């Protein structure tokens, strides 16, 4: 990855609060156009790290470049190129989505049309409802709408789907994918591993102030090459075999059943959640 291709480039980032090392030497590269998901337990330094990238917090050490600029020295031009969706907010309570969006659109040089944004996040029907009367999921969609309003090159999403029902989450994932298709780089922090697996090109796991692994969701923690588990119901009850050659194992079992259907056959590899929990457990 060349420098100019990276939306985010972090080297040796450190941040202390008193004696506590919240972030201790983080390196991170996010390519332009990529969806990158940062995973980690509460208190791991995830939010600190992201807020340094967003320009909200100063850092103690290391190099940080976001869209080629140090966020600590960023100006309004830089802020016009990023979009931030913070964790749960409850502002704008007296305004409707249309009013909140048209106010904020005035801050940006090239805002998306308000109607288009409302449509993208699925709030068109609620555009004239005061924000304090929106449901949790609708309120969150307003936050996302405000984040993408300025037509950002890089979008920060901090736990965007908290409080969504399953259908709203599916719709939201579609929205993120369409933004990505339009070329927006996305940094997503989430506690939902299925969300990271579905959306992210790559995931990074942060634990105890450091990045412990970065890979595609399918390969994280050796997931792609990890032993598979074959399980089925044999004549004496449930059976499990852990193997590096599941195809051969299945063939052998099939033979033992004389070509008949194998009851309750499942071939599984560790889920993203399995490897994630293992990683953050090992880091402690």
């Amino acid at each position: 990855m060349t420098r100019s291709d990276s939306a985010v480039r972090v080297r040796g980032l450190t941040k202390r609060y008193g004696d506590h090392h919240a972030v201790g030497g983080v390196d991170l590269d996010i390519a332009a156009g990529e969806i990158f998901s940062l995973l980690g337990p509460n208190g791991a330094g995830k939010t600190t790290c992201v807020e340094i990238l967003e320009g909200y917090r100063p850092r103690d050490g290391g190099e940080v470049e976001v869209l080629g600029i140090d966020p600590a020295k960023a100006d309004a031009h830089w802020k016009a190129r990023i979009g931030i969706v913070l964790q749960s907010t409850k502002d704008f309570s007296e305004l409707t989505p249309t009013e909140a969006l048209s106010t904020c659109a005035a801050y940006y040089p090239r805002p998306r049309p308000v109607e288009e944004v409302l449509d993208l996040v699925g709030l068109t029907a609620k555009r004239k409802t005061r924000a304090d009367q929106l449901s949790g999921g609708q309120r969150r969609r307003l936050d996302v709408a405000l984040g993408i309003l300025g037509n950002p090159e890089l979008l920060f999403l901090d736990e965007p789907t908290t409080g969504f029902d399953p259908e709203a989450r599916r719709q939201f994932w579609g929205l993120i994918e369409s933004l990505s298709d339009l070329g927006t780089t996305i940094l997503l922090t989430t506690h939902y591993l299925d969300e990271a697996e579905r959306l992210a090109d790559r995931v990074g796991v942060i634990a105890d102030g450091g990045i412990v692994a970065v890979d595609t969701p399918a390969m994280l923690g050796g997931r792609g090459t990890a032993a598979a588990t074959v399980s089925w119901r044999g004549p004496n009850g449930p059976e499990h075999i852990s193997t590096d050659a599941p195809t051969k194992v299945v063939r052998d079992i099939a033979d033992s059943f004389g070509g008949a259907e194998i009851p309750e056959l499942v071939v599984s590899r560790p889920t993203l959640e399995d490897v994630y929990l293992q990683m953050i457990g090992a880091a402690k």
Partner: protein
Amino acid sequence: MTTTATRRTAALPSLASVSKARVRAELLSFFREKEAVVFVLLFPVILLVVFGAVFGGNDEVAPGVPFIQYFVAGMIAAGLLSASFQNLAIQIPIERDTGYLKRLSGTPMPKAAYFIGKVVLVGFVAVVQTALLMAIGVLLYDVVLPSGLETWLNFAWIALLGITSCTLLGIAFSSIPKNGKSAPAIVSPVAILLQFISGVFFVFSQLPTWMQTIAAVFPLKWMTQGMRSVFLPDAAQAAEPAGSWELGRIAVVLAVWCVVGLVLCLMTFRWRSRSDG
């Protein structure tokens, strides 16, 4: 990087156009929030009606000056305090608490536009409120409005200086409440106490001397005194502790508070809540 380069050249909106959007948002939010409208805008008006009904009789604070005339002058000054200090010192902590200020500081909005929006809101509320107080005074209680250009010019600079100092102090004070919920409980007693000792509800010269001395430190005492110079006949100067309106001293004290308020704002204003590091 070409797309980035072209995007970077896109000009940011002017301060004027962003400020216009801020003013619209401020006015919409204020007038939709019933508590703000009742407490900040209407409460002084309600007080005038109630006190006028109670003390609207023949009590005179000076020969030919009924108490209600004295009270309207004080209430207009208290109204300016309410529109600026109470309004902002309560609203800004709530905006800080809900994440609104953090959100704004993450956008390219010029910071000045936020404060311009607040100043216009304060000015608008102050004008509406002062007009209501004068109208009710005249219509219900036979209050006499000043005549003469010079008196109205005095009214203008006293109101402007008073509201400027109290706006800056309100923004500075907004850093004191720990969160939005506690703001009214911290700000309101301060304002009410100031009203009691600054010559709004009681004739100032009849208050204990020590109380007068404390009140003289704060802007409201000088604002009420200035408003009396506008609404009371010159003969009533005799009832002032100094025996005169002290217009020069009013200007100096309020100007000093403007400077103090500005310095405090610059030193203490935060875009995020304390619980947010």
